[in-house]
């Protein structure tokens, strides 16, 4: 009986530790939700599926993607954390500058450019499957997904507008979370 109770104590301790691990797994978004300020960003989505989590809309943000010259200015070889300092323009936030060092103040996003895509913790919006498909169709009809190519077959950067904005929350350390997708 004594060994059984000792095991129960261990199981209770492990369960508590597991529970405390959950906020660690989602720390950035949790912090943004609890302490962050709300901002608006223009978006351009597509809709794939995550095996554990279902259908989502993959969000890209044309206004915070660094251009070639931006990349050159922040030592591009040195991939890792990239801070995107934001400023407001026409009611939405856009990138003002990029930096490898944490900005002293102001509103900024703490992103990661180790992979081919800039990831700022706001890259997906999970929705029920039919809802995700509907948003996708809507975006496709807006013409955002129609790629244009130059004579060398390279995609032409164009300032397309899906008509959607993402409402996000950003905390003081640059952690961000998507709150909602809205039609402008």
């Amino acid at each position: 009986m004594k060994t059984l109770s000792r095991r129960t104590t261990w199981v209770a301790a492990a369960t508590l530790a597991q529970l405390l691990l959950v906020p660690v797994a989602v720390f950035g978004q949790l912090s943004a939700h609890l302490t962050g300020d709300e901002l608006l960003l223009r978006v351009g989505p597509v809709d794939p599926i995550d095996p554990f989590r279902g259908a989502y809309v993959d969000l890209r943000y044309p206004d915070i993607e660094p251009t070639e010259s931006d990349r050159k200015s922040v030592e591009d070889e040195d991939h890792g954390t990239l801070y995107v300092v934001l400023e407001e323009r026409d009611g939405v936030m856009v990138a003002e500058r990029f930096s490898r060092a944490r900005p002293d103040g102001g509103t900024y996003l703490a992103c990661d450019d180790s992979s081919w895509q800039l990831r700022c913790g706001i890259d997906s919006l999970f929705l029920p499957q039919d809802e995700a498909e509907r948003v996708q169709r809507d975006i496709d009809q807006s013409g955002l997904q129609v790629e244009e190519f130059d004579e060398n077959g390279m995609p032409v950067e164009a300032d397309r507008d899906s008509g959607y904005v993402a409402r996000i929350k950003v905390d003081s350390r640059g952690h961000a979370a998507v709150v909602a997708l809205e039609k402008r």
Partner: protein
Amino acid sequence: MCETAGEADSGGMDTSTPTRADAPRPVSPAQLAWLTREVGRWTSDGVVTSGQADAILDTYRAVRRWSLAALALWLGAAFVGVGVIWLVAANLDRFAPLGRFVTVTILWVAAVAAADLLARRVRTRRSPVVGGMRGLAALLYGAVVMQAAQSLQVPAWDATLVGVWALGALLYAYAARGLAPLVIGIVLGSTWLVWSVGERAESPFGVVLAFGALGAGGFALARLHAAGTDGADGAGFAATWRITGAVGCLVALFVAALPWEYDLQDAGWLGWAAIGLGVVLAAIAASRSRRLDLLEATAGVITLVPAIGIGFWSSQAGDGIGAADWGRAVVAVAVFVGVAAAVAAVGVLRDEPHLTWLAVLALAVFTTVQAFAVFAEIITGAWLFVALGVVFAATGWVADRGRREMASALEGQSQEGTDR
């Protein structure tokens, strides 16, 4: 699989009910059939009388380890667990995210509590009901993590979520001494390690490091559990970590020997940290072992050296197939045969036939892939199969010789009274 590994390790001798001294001992039907045959021979040889023969046979009864009830329980637990995770993925927006999170958390805590209560009531070792419930609790913890991520819109394809789920499952496995959560934790943890290291390294070399670390850590932990004094639980845990180590070593060598031309980018701190942890565990295990046990404790680390070496070599593979490629393929096959033979030998040493089968299967897949990747461009058509047959027969002969020598060396050792 986990529970069978544990039960196989305990040799089917586990008493699944509290036995009185005169109650028949449960054995597998195959063991009882063998004993009946042998006892018949003893009777006809006059070694025992038919009355004594009956008395001997009456002390055993046939029990199937894989009962249909256990299979149904485990399948049921797995289906319910996966089903709840899919419900989380279905994103039922009729219910508020916080409500969904609380519901899933309550289900998880209820499963943990139910498993613990059942473990108190069912006073048997390895009850499939308790095992199934613990497995379900480990799966439901995944649903909790995924629902938290869902509620907060954490971006898709985030390896951290799988890592936290794995860590939670392992914590639970060790707290409850449950094999089912251990297997779930190991599978998820390995997925997280290979995913995270592979993502950072952006080359197959990161995958070699991740699997190599699993091999080193798996064999070391198997030895530590086997050397520990925690009884049948320890034996089940040891068997599970041992198969993890074997899979890690074999896959690391397999990936290392693939002739891909790639830049050896830095695998990042995570890959080398995992290797470091594996080496430290192996050192601790080695300090508590001697002779053949020492070899098992360090098997993963010993495999790391040729795996990393062949990985460096393979990365310089050119477009064509030259003498260097032949040389590398021959060395890689030789090393792989050695490691596969060692894994098969551990299978014999620990009386775990599934390790031997794993080694044979790995060897077959490895030689086939190497033959097609390297030799195929030179020897085409019918000759490829003739050459492949000769390679198979030769490796089979070498492996079988090694296995027999290891088995006879082991017999010599066990006669000296060394324990497992």
